[in-house]
């Protein structure tokens, strides 16, 4: 595929930056626009770009679909688990004030945990849906 050399080199250069940008968006969601959803979608976009350029088999080897499905479920569990954790620590469900010694630190910690859950689920969902659509052959009549 010599005519796709530009595409492959370009993707190879871009994908690490996309991943780092996704991490940046995730952790700077507190200070600027961003947060869990956007970061999860950008994460997924990096993997989808890889799958589009290098083929679905290579993408399956890099990130097996089973891992992706587990990610989607684990994210929801992290979110709900944070709520249950606050229940055990004496507060209400999803009351972040009890997570640390001071309410503001508890709030920041709680927000970081739930955003982690959200980004994992969104990433898993987007990549799983892409795999489902791309892994199916053309419908014959």
């Amino acid at each position: 595929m010599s005519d796709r050399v530009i595409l492959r080199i370009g993707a190879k250069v871009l994908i690490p930056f996309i991943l780092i940008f996704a991490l940046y968006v995730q952790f700077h969601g507190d200070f600027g626009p961003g947060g869990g959803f956007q970061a999860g979608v950008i994460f997924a976009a990096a993997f989808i770009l890889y799958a589009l350029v290098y083929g679905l088999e290579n993408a399956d080897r890099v990130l097996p679909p089973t891992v992706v499905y587990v990610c989607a479920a684990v994210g929801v569990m992290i979110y709900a688990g944070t709520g249950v954790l606050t229940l055990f620590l004496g507060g209400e469900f999803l009351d972040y004030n009890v997570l640390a010694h001071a309410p503001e630190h508890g709030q920041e910690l709680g927000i970081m945990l739930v955003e982690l859950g959200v980004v994992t689920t969104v990433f898993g969902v987007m990549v799983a849906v892409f795999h489902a659509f791309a892994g199916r052959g053309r419908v014959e009549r």
Partner: protein
Amino acid sequence: MRILGYYNYWVVIFLMMVGFYTLISRGNLVKKLVGLTVFQTSVFILYISMGKIEGGTAPIIMQGQHVVYSNPIPHVLILTGIVVGIATTAVGLSLVVRIKEAYGTIEEDEIHVQDDVL
């Protein structure tokens, strides 16, 4: 002139009607889904435009300055709405793929014909 103050609603209504028309008049299932997406986006624009304040800025607090912030609550609602919207579109598109496999077509009237025959 008070009428001109409403132009954002007119833009929204125009987009909404475009989406609505595509939804009910086209027989092709994928076109219906596209119309639904246009409809969804017009509703988002409605909420966001209602939250804007003249001379306001993005609702990110800048320390020590007295600025007017635009209303953050519609932003929160629409953020959720966008994500749920694409989830619905994804399920809808996968349903279309399965319908194509089961009926061999994605035109609505041909599907009805096959249903009546069966």
